[in-house]
């Protein structure tokens, strides 16, 4: 599984995911991996590469393009005692199997009075890559709104590994959101790369704890997923304008570290909540409410998230999807307000 040292520069997030899956499948024979194109191809983003070769086609297999059937199959298999990891190729495809997510996966543990468990991981690729409104969504809040689903959204290579291990070992259903740029980017080229030794044994990360990525005294940027990486670039730009921007990575939408968000927000007079998901009824509002409920009036807040669907053309996408530049701009605007 290990790449040669000379090739490690080329390693992407997808390599990390595949390595974690490999390691966890060796540890736990109950893990099975299935979904569209996860077998011979190794996933359209390469995140299941070499798994079928290593474990055979009974533990790693392709499914028909039938999300309802194979997500339901994962739920039943989890309830029966396996630990399935399914891939929804693009999160946008969740619509075709939403009953299984909304009414089965999320509810069966609760409705059974705790008598059945649904230990499955749904890995899915999210985020804007210029592919318009059916292939660029994040939809994190859509999952987070449903009681009974844990929603993890790694922003860094370290969390891509640590949170994935935590998801796999969780006895609850977990939606694991993998940002396409995190999967595709070379780790060494990321604005924030905490993967010091990607071959080291991976430990599960703590679920439900925010993480301070950067200290700052003027404004706190609170974000998740790829927006954290963008915020790192924005903070550097703000620094050149003598603005000290801290960054807090949400990491886990469910469970949400509401206390941690409030205590982190207290470190600066302003907080900008950034999200690549839709603003309405979403994560930005939830974070603001969590802070406002705990420390009313202490922090001036604003949010920066999508207010329309993702367009295809780059010049339009840039208008809509938050970026390092727009985050810096919004932070300055908040400070001036």
């Amino acid at each position: 599984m290990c790449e040669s040292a000379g090739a490690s520069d080329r390693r992407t997030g997808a390599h990390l995911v595949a390595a974690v899956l490999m390691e966890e499948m060796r540890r736990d024979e109950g893990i099975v991996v299935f979904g569209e194109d996860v077998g011979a191809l190794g996933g359209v983003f390469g995140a299941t590469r070499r798994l079928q070769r290593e474990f055979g086609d009974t533990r790693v297999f392709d499914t028909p393009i039938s999300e309802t059937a194979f997500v339901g199959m994962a739920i039943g298999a989890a309830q029966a005692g396996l630990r399935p990891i399914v891939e929804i190729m693009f999160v946008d495809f969740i619509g075709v199997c939403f009953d299984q997510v909304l009414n089965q996966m999320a509810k069966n543990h609760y409705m059974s009075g705790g008598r059945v468990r649904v230990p499955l991981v749904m890995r899915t690729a999210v985020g804007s890559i210029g592919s318009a409104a059916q292939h660029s969504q994040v939809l994190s809040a859509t999952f987070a709104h449903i009681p009974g689903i844990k929603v993890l959204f790694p922003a860094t290579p370290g969390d891509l590994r640590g949170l994935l291990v935590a998801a796999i070992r969780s006895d609850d259903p977990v939606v694991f959101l993998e940002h396409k740029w995190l999967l595709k980017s070379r780790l060494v080229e990321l604005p924030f790369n905490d993967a010091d030794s990607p071959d080291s044994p991976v430990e599960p990360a703590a679920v439900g704890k925010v993480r301070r990525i950067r200290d700052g005294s003027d404004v706190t940027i609170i974000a998740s997923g790829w927006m954290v990486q963008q915020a790192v670039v924005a903070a550097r730009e703000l620094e050149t304008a003598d603005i000290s921007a801290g960054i807090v990575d949400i990491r886990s939408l469910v469970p949400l570290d509401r206390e941690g968000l409030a205590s982190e927000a207290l470190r600066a007079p302003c907080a900008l909540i950034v999200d690549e998901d839709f603003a309405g009824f979403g994560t930005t509002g939830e974070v603001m409410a969590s802070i406002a409920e705990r420390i009313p009036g202490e922090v001036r807040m604003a949010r920066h998230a999508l207010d329309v669907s993702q367009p295809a053309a780059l010049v339009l996408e840039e208008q809509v999807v938050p970026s390092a530049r727009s985050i810096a701009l919004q932070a300055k605007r908040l400070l001036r307000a």
Partner: protein
Amino acid sequence: MLTPRQLYETVLRMRLLEEGVGVAVQTGEIHGEMHLGIGQEMVSAVMGQYLQPRDALVSTHRPHLHALVKGVDPVQMLAELLERDGLNHGKGGHMHLFDPVASFMCTGIVGSGAPIAAGYALHRKLVAQGGLTVAVVGEGAMNQGAVFETMNLAAVLSLPMVFLCENNDYGISVPRRLSTAGQLVERGAGFGINGWECDGVDQRALDEAFSAAFADTRKHSRPTLIVAHVYRFRGHYEGDTDHYRPAEEKETAFRDRDPLLVARRDLVGAGWSDERIVALDGEIGREVSDWFEAARSLPFPDPSEARRGTFVDV
């Protein structure tokens, strides 16, 4: 094949259970929606002989009869129905019964149990060989994509599962002729799935279908389909005005297609006197009323239960 006594006893237990539940709806003891299986008993009664403890069964919004034959404790189930601290501590209720010991569950969403049944079948294929999974659907669910997707997936993956379609001719109020094209049993054939169609109040026909389909699925680890034709004696739910079904149709069915009357006729044919049957009725009646009494003796769920169990560890 079940003896006439076994069949009659089993159907009678089911009938008395469902009637007792119906009364509990009328008295307000049960405040939620309720779907009874009266008229459909013989299908489950016959299936029960072929189910093994290692098999799983995923049922529907009309689940009580399947639960009984899969080995779910009737007192625990009734307590759950009667909104007490029952099988699922009052959080599932009648359409969402989960018994991992009996490998039984059901779902209230039409057709959505089939994919989950495929998961139980995958588990049996990979680690618990020899067991199979039954996915029960109604004829209404046969128009859900979930069922077709699952038939295809089960065939492609050679999953040991039996699709049991209980065709009672109505999806709530809509008759099958207005909702469903073609022949139900032929829908399996399109996926290379062997199918059996039978009269759901004909013990011999049911027995042939279940023995053949279960044997085929067990032996070859592949899906099969059974379509059993039944008549729903009650409305879709308790409280349904049921004005959409012609009176003559109902009268004919009540006369000719009542599983309890058919089973009783067989008992008489086997030489049972009225007196013996009355004695047996009394015996089974006491058994079922003991279930209700035991269920009603259980406490209501602790109010704190409502906020428990969204997650395993939170």
